[in-house]
């Protein structure tokens, strides 16, 4: 059973557009949600994260919107650049002292110039 789901599986946008990546989860004990960016041949890099006490987290062109009631969140990438082309993983963790992170299946983003 997939505890963290992502959609779409792949997404293509033009340079300058906003890419929206969706994520949903099952477990109500999850309270920390990191997004990781992974380029081919590399490990996942922490991109941005949000805790369940917040409904929005912004860092430059990357923004997380969080809806605790619906157990959904989304990552918005504004002014998308070709260098943003990567696979993005939504993840969730139940608490701070376990560091047990559950990953979604990823969204492969392609930004066309």
């Amino acid at each position, binding site marked *: 059973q997939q505890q963290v789901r992502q959609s779409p599986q792949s997404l293509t946008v033009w340079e300058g557009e906003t890419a929206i990546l969706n994520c949903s989860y099952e477990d109500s004990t999850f309270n920390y949600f990191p997004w990781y960016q992974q380029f081919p041949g590399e490990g996942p890099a922490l991109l941005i*994260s949000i805790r369940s006490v917040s409904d929005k987290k912004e860092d430059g062109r990357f923004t997380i919107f969080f809806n605790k009631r619906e157990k959904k969140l989304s990552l918005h990438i504004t002014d998308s650049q070709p260098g943003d082309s990567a696979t993005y993983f939504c993840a969730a963790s139940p608490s701070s*002292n376990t560091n047990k992170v559950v990953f979604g299946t990823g969204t492969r983003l392609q930004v066309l110039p």
Partner: protein
Amino acid sequence: GALVYQYPRRTICKSGTSMRMECQAVGFQATSVAWYRQSPQKTFELIALSTVNSAIKYEQNFTQEKFPISHPNLSFSSMTVLNAYLEDRGLYLCGAGDWGTYEQYFGPGTRLTVL
């Protein structure tokens, strides 16, 4: 900044042999280390979570007998894949975190190929 290094980056072993991989945390205290395997289908499987001063917890389908892990201090961990077979292929990732913070930082992974 927080960095995680993994060695080796790539390794090839014959079916039935074993190989050891290492994880080094720099710039923070790795009070917990999680080992994952990323399959060719790109999904992440949690193998085990090691927390300093606690027993290592293995996930279902993974055992200490197959994937022994060492976490001797706050900056280093190693895992061995014993008796490797084709189904053990993949990218093995080390994710290290510090108690009291939520962030978990990953290394670049060790890609295991089994012949």
